């Protein structure tokens, strides 16, 4: 859709990838974003994932122009947007609390952007955008008369109607209940595919990031820990923080003792384990060993095999329906979790206190740099969930 009519003063036409070059945002007492560089290809669905306070919202606000970076540059295509005002940027935001104009009708809310840009057919553009989010029938209402989910759709329409180069979504689904959130995730993905714009989605919900985005960047303490497609992020985390934040992980602190062909041999709290060399971020010295819970099997007797097993005591059994989660305390005191799909005709009937063996295919193991904090956090998350 081409922009017809006159353009507002100062508005910068820019097309292409979004690029952040060494962007830093420092406040008086802390650095919210620390020397961040990334490229978001045009038309992709990009998720910035991280815990609260990790700098993801600050990054988003700098792209929108609502905050200015302390250092670094923000570009769309070859146009440098650093220092320009929000209304000069081909970027629109879907705010966390929707931020609809309370004194305007839904229709006028959506037509606000096109009108400011001097579009002659602002009203019909607004109707099209409302149709895209299936809200045409409520166009005459005021925001206060709409439910949270409906307001959310209007907020998306109000931003999309401008066909920005980059659409920013700041935890847009945070206020919705679980069912509605799932529905909106699918909807947003559909809209993004339909309009083909660059979407940047900020969230702390890893499941949301994984289901929607082409590329996920995990942020922690103002930096990007790891970036890649969701499958890769889950399968092969590069840091203990990511292993912990994207899905669950069983982690153990250890050190590498040798090498056997394609495998590194490591001693983890008294057990000898094998890590595929290409799946380890470190080659020698201290290592954090990890394996995903669903890759771990629970056996009553020690299985014949390569020795990728560890003995433990069942701490808790929770039946989830499609699977059963076991929390198992290892002799070192670490708690691991294991998911077993409920495929067997006769359930294992394990109870807390039973002795079991945990076993896994060494090809699924991964090694990341040592990070005692993350290991402890992983532990706390499991024990907290189990109790």
């Amino acid at each position, binding site marked *: 859709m081409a922009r017809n009519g006159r353009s*507002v*003063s*100062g*508005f910068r036409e820019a097309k292409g990838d979004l690029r952040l070059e060494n962007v830093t945002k420092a406040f008086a007492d802390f650095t919210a974003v620390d020397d961040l560089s990334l490229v978001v290809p045009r038309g992709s669905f990009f998720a910035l994932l991280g815990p609260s306070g990790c700098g993801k919202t600050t990054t988003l606000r700098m792209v*929108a*122009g*609502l905050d200015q970076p302390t250092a670094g540059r923000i570009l769309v295509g070859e146009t440098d947007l650093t220092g320009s*005002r*929000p*209304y000069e940027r081909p*970027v*629109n*935001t879907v*705010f*966390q*609390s929707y*931020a*609809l*104009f*309370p*004194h*305007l009708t839904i229709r006028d809310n959506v037509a*606000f*952007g096109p009108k*400011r*840009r001097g579009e002659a057919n602002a009203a019909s553009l607004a109707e099209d955008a409302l149709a895209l989010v299936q809200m045409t029938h409520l166009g005459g209402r005021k925001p206060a008369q709409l439910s949270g989910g409906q307001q959310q759709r209007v907020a998306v329409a*109000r*931003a999309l109607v*401008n066909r920005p180069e980059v659409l920013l979504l700041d935890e847009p689904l945070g206020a919705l209940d679980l069912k509605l959130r799932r529905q909106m995730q699918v909807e947003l993905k559909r809209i993004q595919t339909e309009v083909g714009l660059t979407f940047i989605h900020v969230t702390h919900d890893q499941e949301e990031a994984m289901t929607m985005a082409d590329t996920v960047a995990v942020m922690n303490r103002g930096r990007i820990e790891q970036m890649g497609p969701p499958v890769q992020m889950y399968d092969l985390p590069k840091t203990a923080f990511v292993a912990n934040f994207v899905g669950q992980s069983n982690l153990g602190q250890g050190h590498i003792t040798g090498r056997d062909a394609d495998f590194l041999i490591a001693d983890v709290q008294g057990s000898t384990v094998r890590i595929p060399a290409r799946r380890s971020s470190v080659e020698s010295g201290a290592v954090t060993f990890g394996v995903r819970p669903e890759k771990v099997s629970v056996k009553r007797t020690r299985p014949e095999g390569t020795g990728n097993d560890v003995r433990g005591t069942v701490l808790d059994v929770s039946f989830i329906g499609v699977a059963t989660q076991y929390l198992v305390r290892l002799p070192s005191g670490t708690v691991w979790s294991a998911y077993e799909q409920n495929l067997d005709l006769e359930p294992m009937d394990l109870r807390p206190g039973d002795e079991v063996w945990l076993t896994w295919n060494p090809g699924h193991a991964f090694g990341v740099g040592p990070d005692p904090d993350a290991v402890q956090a992983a532990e706390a998350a499991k024990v907290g969930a189990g109790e």
Partner: protein
Amino acid sequence: MSALAHMGGGGAPATAMPPKEPSGRSWLPYLLLLPGVLWLLVFFIYPLAQLFAVSLYSDYPDYPGYYYQDVNWHNYVRALTDFLPHFGRSMLYAGLATFFAFVLAYPLAYAMAFKAGKWRGIMMILVIAPFFTSFILRTIAWRQILADEGPVAWVLEHLHLLSFMPNGRITETWVAVVAGLTYNFLPFMVLPIYASLERADPRVIEAGGDLYANGFTTFRTVTLPMSMPGVIAGTLLTFIPAAGDYVNAELLGSDTGTKMVGNVIESQFFKVLGGYPIAAALSFSLMALILAMVFLYVRRYGTEELL
């Protein structure tokens, strides 16, 4: 509650019966209302009816100060013809004071809501602080400030502006009366505007910028409309008491040419023998005039949030 439900569902089919009210304690709300209703009856409704009755009294031609009960509408004719200039001044001065109070209050309220940071509390105290001194005393203080030898006159004289003032002075002119009214009712303008701006979500204002509106356009199309409930409340709280005020005109105005309706009511009531019915008729006329203006104003600019 049930009355509201019935109004809302007017003409609803009988199948949609409202849930049955729990009986027994249904008298409680009325009991709680009773003290307020009694208070209003004794101290508002009854005196108002009494005032209306007095406004229609006639006096004995030969005995000034003695009245008999009557329905004498001529009192209203006299009130509105003899004192038409005073009505005009009341509306004009109150209107000017409301305008100037708005011009002064909006930036102040805006700064308090969005820019003050840690100074917000101190600014709030400064706005409210004048209430700790008597209204009369503060107005008398303004006599000194606006006096011929006072600081304002001195500054204007040195800027060669004093000659633009009526009679070449400030005190005892309409300028002083409007200045006094503006000053005295400023907090009633600041506080409601501040409250409505403070309640506004700053993200909504940011959204204006995000949607291609520059600073001024965002103010005109987002911030100002969002604060309209406060603006309307503030203008009403300023205009209504200012239109009925007589202290400012008494203390800061001149003996002729700046008197307002309030001054006439006061003098008819206290100083003119036999002035009671006229004073009552003036009071009732002023009340009706203000009510009519407020009604039209709220209908024109009012929002559902206000009422």
